[in-house]
């Protein structure tokens, strides 16, 4: 425990910041002490990321005061914040897709030779070391970032932030896309740098993580800080109560009995993807009304499978049968016509049209039902968006606001709303609750379960084991682009799943041998 009595390293008093009429920060006060790990929690749109952007010089604040080491602090640019010793991993990625992993990691201070030229060797060496440190030994540092999956990108962002020495490291939902393995590794690193006296600010919607590594927690609600507590003094339900203003009713997480029928809704046979033609092919069945989870470590190939089924990427071989009849899916359109929906993992690049209004995004898939003769019926569209938003507790200003003005978690809800509007009979969900807060997550689970009860089948890819165990009827574990095993609900256990997820090496060796 750090000495909480010592004078604060950074203190924020009654900070205010608004976007147009929205008060994103409406009186935020908290303090950071040297060498602590400080959690910021709050519902989606509570203002956490906005505070971080103010601290890191992305946004200017309107009122209030920030003091750092006792002096006034008002960063006018990201550069100024860096000079002051604040390093940030933002919630939305800031990577350069066509540049190499190494270049991305060193982008802030690319190493130079004594002639002032780029020192590639040194750059690659540093990147290698940085990646090894966070456990990414399988990534080639000279590969372009564009070719990596979303979790890898997140880790690269973290590796980049760890490059320069800082006195405050802010991590905005770094674990949202990570699996246990990476999360554990990240926490080891956090403890390491904490030991060196660096203060870490940590944002997460996973309270177990907060309780696992943080010393103190500050709770946000509606742009205000409600309280700052020592972790030792509170319990997770307390924190949730602070967040939502009332106790969260216990949603029946384990109540879900496998109510699905034996009827097979979707069968995948010998599926090989173009990204990994060397695999033996994936085969599995999805029953009517079943929620099938897919677990695996980062890069296990889960996203690939969903994309191939949906026709987002071409399938190399294999077939997909729906209700016993083979489907020809060449493009997403065919899949949608067959009643399949796909919630993609990367909302920024694949899910949303950021510049367009919330309403237009919610109706993007099912625009047919809110239009006639090719003309958009705006009233119907608004109704659809209002309904979808209400169902998912979307927090927004107006339906005509661009989606980019929403907080990260609320953007994710729009992606969900878009696919739910289409009433698919099969729904593929890739990290469906990425960045969604506890309350809304429970809400989403109950919605999904409700859909399953109506006979809709789902495949959920998630890096959160609790999510999979709470939500699914069966879990399929993948590693190295292969299915390692299938677990029924009765067989669920963290150890078992991880064992299969890690078991890739022995298994594949056995197979190729």
């Amino acid at each position, binding site marked *: 425990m750090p000495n909480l009595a010592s004078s604060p390293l950074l203190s924020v008093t009654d900070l205010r910041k608004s976007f147009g009429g929205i008060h994103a920060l409406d009186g935020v006060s908290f303090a950071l002490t040297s060498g602590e790990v400080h959690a910021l929690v709050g519902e989606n749109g509570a203002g956490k990321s906005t505070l971080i952007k103010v601290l890191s010089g992305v946004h200017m604040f309107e009122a209030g005061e920030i003091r750092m080491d006792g002096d006034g602090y008002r960063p006018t640019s990201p550069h100024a914040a860096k000079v002051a010793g604040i390093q940030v991993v933002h919630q939305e990625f800031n990577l350069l897709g066509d540049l190499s992993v190494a270049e991305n990691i060193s982008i802030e201070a690319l190493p130079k030779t004594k002639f002032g030229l780029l020192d590639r060797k040194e750059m690659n060496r540093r990147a290698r070391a940085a990646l090894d440190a966070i456990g990414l030994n399988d990534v080639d540092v000279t590969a372009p970032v564009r070719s990596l999956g979303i979790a890898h990108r997140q880790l690269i962002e973290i590796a980049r932030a760890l490059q320069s020495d800082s006195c405050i490291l802010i991590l905005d939902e770094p674990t949202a896309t990570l699996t246990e393995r990476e999360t554990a590794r990240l926490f080891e690193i956090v403890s390491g740098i904490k030991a060196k006296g660096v203060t870490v600010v940590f944002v997460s919607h996973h309270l177990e993580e907060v309780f696992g590594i943080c010393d103190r927690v500050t709770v946000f609600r509606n742009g205000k800080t409600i309280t700052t507590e020592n972790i030792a003094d509170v319990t997770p339900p307390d924190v949730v109560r602070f967040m939502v*203003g009332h106790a969260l009713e216990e949603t029946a997480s384990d109540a879900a009995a496998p109510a699905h029928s034996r009827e097979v809704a979707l069968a995948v046979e010998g599926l090989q993807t173009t990204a990994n033609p060397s695999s033996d092919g994936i085969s599995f069945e999805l029953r009517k009304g079943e929620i099938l989870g897919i677990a695996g470590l980062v890069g296990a190939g889960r996203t690939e499978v969903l994309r191939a089924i949906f026709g987002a990427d071409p399938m190399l071989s294999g077939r997909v049968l729906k209700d016993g009849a083979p489907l020809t899916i060449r493009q997403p359109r065919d899949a949608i016509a067959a009643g399949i929906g796909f919630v993609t993992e990367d909302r920024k690049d694949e899910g949303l*049209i950021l510049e*367009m209004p919330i309403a237009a995004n919610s109706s993007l898939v099912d*625009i*047919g039902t809110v239009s006639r003769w*090719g003309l*958009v019926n705006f009233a119907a569209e608004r109704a659809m968006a209002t309904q979808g938003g209400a169902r998912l507790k979307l927090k927004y200003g107006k339906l005509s606001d661009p989606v980019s003005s929403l907080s990260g978690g609320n953007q994710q809800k729009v992606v969900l709303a878009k696919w739910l509007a289409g009433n698919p009979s099969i729904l593929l969900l890739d990290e469906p609750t990425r960045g969604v807060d506890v309350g809304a997550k429970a809400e989403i689970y109950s919605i999904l379960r409700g859909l399953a009860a109506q006979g809709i089948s789902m495949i959920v890819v998630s890096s959160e084991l609790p999510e999979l165990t709470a939500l699914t009827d069966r879990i399929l574990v993948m590693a190295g682009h292969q299915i390692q095993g299938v677990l029924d609900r009765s067989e669920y256990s963290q150890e078992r799943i991880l064992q299969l997820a890690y078991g890739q090496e022995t298994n594949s060796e056995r197979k190729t041998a």
Partner: protein
Amino acid sequence: MSIAEEVSFTPRRKPVSIRSIVNNAGIGLALLVMIAFFSVASEHFLSANNITNILTQITINLILAVGMTFVILIGGIDLSVGSVMAFAAVVAGKAITLPGLGPTELIILAVLAGVVAGTICGVLNGVVSAYWSLPSFIITLGMLNIARGAALQISGAQTIYSFPFAFEEFGSLLVYGVPVVFIVALALVVIAWFVLNRTVFGRLIYGIGNNEEAVRLAGHPVFWYKVAAFSICGFTAGIAAIIYMARLNIASPIAGIGFELNAIAAVIIGGTSLSGGRGSVIGTLLGAFIIGVLANGLILIGLSDFMRQMITGVVIVVAVILDHYRAKYSAS
């Protein structure tokens, strides 16, 4: 909906309709400044005759720019419109000078021929660039050469002339001082506005310009939408060809050189983003006016040609800078 009820935000901005009007009117400020200036600087500027002139003079650029707006909104560009216009004009010119037909048939035939010729070029642009996902800049640069070569080849590099009287008349017809050809252009603007703002097609045009992948994953046939955008641009080039012929009474294979830059300029001055997804055809209308008023006004105040060219450059730049500040202040 406990949370939603608890939290009530004051609206962050003015209602969209007004905001979008302000945004559309964006460059309007620069236009107003220009009009005010020229009205003072030249007694002739606001004369009825001169206004008629200006309207006639922006017509062709406006028509091309309307089609160009679609292409730029999906994040493409069409460098071929000038050549395609010449090609369509030559085709229509060949049709309208066919022997042995009555004037009405000839006119109908020519209009059809010109519009079809233009549209086919647009379809080709669209299919090739969308099918192979190639940069439309290069594909339409290819078409620029192909269409121009074809226009010269078909016409034997000769200007085609001597059209039916009614057709030639049409080009200079006025209705209460407003040229009929301008009314045609304005009708295209209105139709384009309607299509872009009220139809599913228009919505997805914007969507593709913003995030093509998201639209594709939402199950829409992005390929066909892109082809459609280029086809519309080819179609308007065909219409422009007909208007050109009616107005100049010739079909010249070397017409329209450099028109693409003017059309693109109108679209971009009008606030449409060259990277797609953002903009409006009302902005395009204003952009075309800026260019037209500037060209007309600078001649009226008697600047020398070279000064005029320099000032044109400066004013275009100043106009977008002005628009930048307007957008900034209207946002806050």
